[in-house]
């Protein structure tokens, strides 16, 4: 029962949606629209899983005083503050504790929420990725070796693309880069795309047929 119900649901819904694709009749369209609406509603609740695992992860860390546990209260605190500020501050017509910002009266919660986003989340997120530029520079110097025919080809193609970007105004180089992207690159990527699509279809099929059942709970 614990396995049969979910497996049957997947099987039935998967096959029904596949058949729906081939039926243009109104009832089929109505069914599809309802299914999509329900899917959106159900999807709204999916965040619970992420939230639960985040809280338990940090809670156990603090409880057992694992390495680096001191940071966990910071993460949890940030979560609570942002959630409270957002839940209150993003409500329609919210004007608790108004403050004046650039001549507009807005709630202090709304004010904090938008500033937390633009002046904390954006810089933190964007900088985390920009650090990679330094790592690439270092790896370029220390590890990108032209040690085989394959890696020589790869490095040459990469150089052509980078030079084409820098000197795009200089015709032959820019056009060579464009050609590299739209002929050999497109051929390889299309081949890989076709293979990957077949892989995706096969995986979906296995999910529907209940052969692939990793989603039932991770371990066997």
């Amino acid at each position, binding site marked *: 029962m614990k396995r049969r119900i979910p497996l049957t649901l997947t099987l039935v819904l998967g096959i029904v949606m596949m058949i729906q694709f081939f039926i243009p009749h109104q009832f089929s369209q109505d069914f599809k629209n309802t299914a999509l609406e329900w899917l959106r509603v159900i999807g709204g609740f999916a965040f619970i899983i992420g939230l639960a695992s985040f809280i338990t992860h940090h809670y156990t860390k603090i409880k057992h005083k694992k390495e680096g546990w001191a940071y966990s209260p910071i993460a949890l605190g940030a979560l609570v503050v942002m959630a409270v500020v957002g839940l209150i501050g993003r409500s329609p017509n919210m004007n608790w504790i108004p403050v004046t910002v650039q001549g507009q009266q807005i709630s202090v919660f709304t004010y904090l929420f938008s500033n937390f986003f633009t002046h904390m989340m954006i810089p933190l997120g964007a900088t985390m990725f920009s650090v990679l530029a330094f790592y690439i520079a270092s790896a370029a110097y220390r590890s990108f070796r032209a040690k085989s025919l394959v890696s020589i080809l790869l490095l040459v193609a*990469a150089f052509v693309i980078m030079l084409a970007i820098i000197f795009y105004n200089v015709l032959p180089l820019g056009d060579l880069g464009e050609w590299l992207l739209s002929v050999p690159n497109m051929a390889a990527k299309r081949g890989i795309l076709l293979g990957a699509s077949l892989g995706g279809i096969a995986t979906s099929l296995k999910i529907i047929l209940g052969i692939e059942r990793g989603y039932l709970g991770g371990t066997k």
Partner: protein
Amino acid sequence: MKKWVPTVIFLAVAVVLIVLAIVFLPVSKSVWVWIAALLTLAIFSILYRDNPIYRIAEHIFVGLSLGYGLAMIWHLALWQIALRPLFVEGRFILIIPIAIGLLYFTRLIPKVSWLVRIPISIALGLGSGIAIPLIFQATIFEQTKASLVLPEMFAPGNPWPGIWAIILIIGIVTTLAYFFFSRKEKSVLSPVSKVGIIFIMLGFGATFGLTVMSRVSLLIGRVQFLLREWLGIIAQ
């Protein structure tokens, strides 16, 4: 070196820079820009080595993101498309998907935690069923069709599109051959797949160059922020 040394160095450098900046530059007067700038520098501090300041900034980010998601999901999803239609507009049919969605909570109750599989299996079943025919249409058919060599590509005076199309088709077929795992060694396909690897490497090379550009762009974006919004060195 002691563990706290980088922290101290970072703080010292930060303080010196801040003082210098306030004295000599048209720095921003907004507290928020300052917070953003200091957080940016905190993340950059990992370039020296892993340190507590970086870890704090990282954990703040993780917490904020999740808190943000929670608030937004309540306002934009649960309220707008589930609860309001149900309670205000009286669309009682929505009780069913809402009940199914609530099953996600059983994850927290060990005894009935298997019930969480029901919403997951519904989402996966619908998703897979919708995806299969559309992937056939959107990639397999569309991409194959777009790869065919057509006579009109060989316009008199400009046969190049046709020639490139032929190379394209050679590249696709040889790439597919490289990933063809049923081929025996020393079969005809071996040299073919060697041609395939050339195309694959040129393709990856292109990705490589572009990835480098991408990362550098992100860095420039951050430096632009520091120099422009914060320090005011670059003109607005």
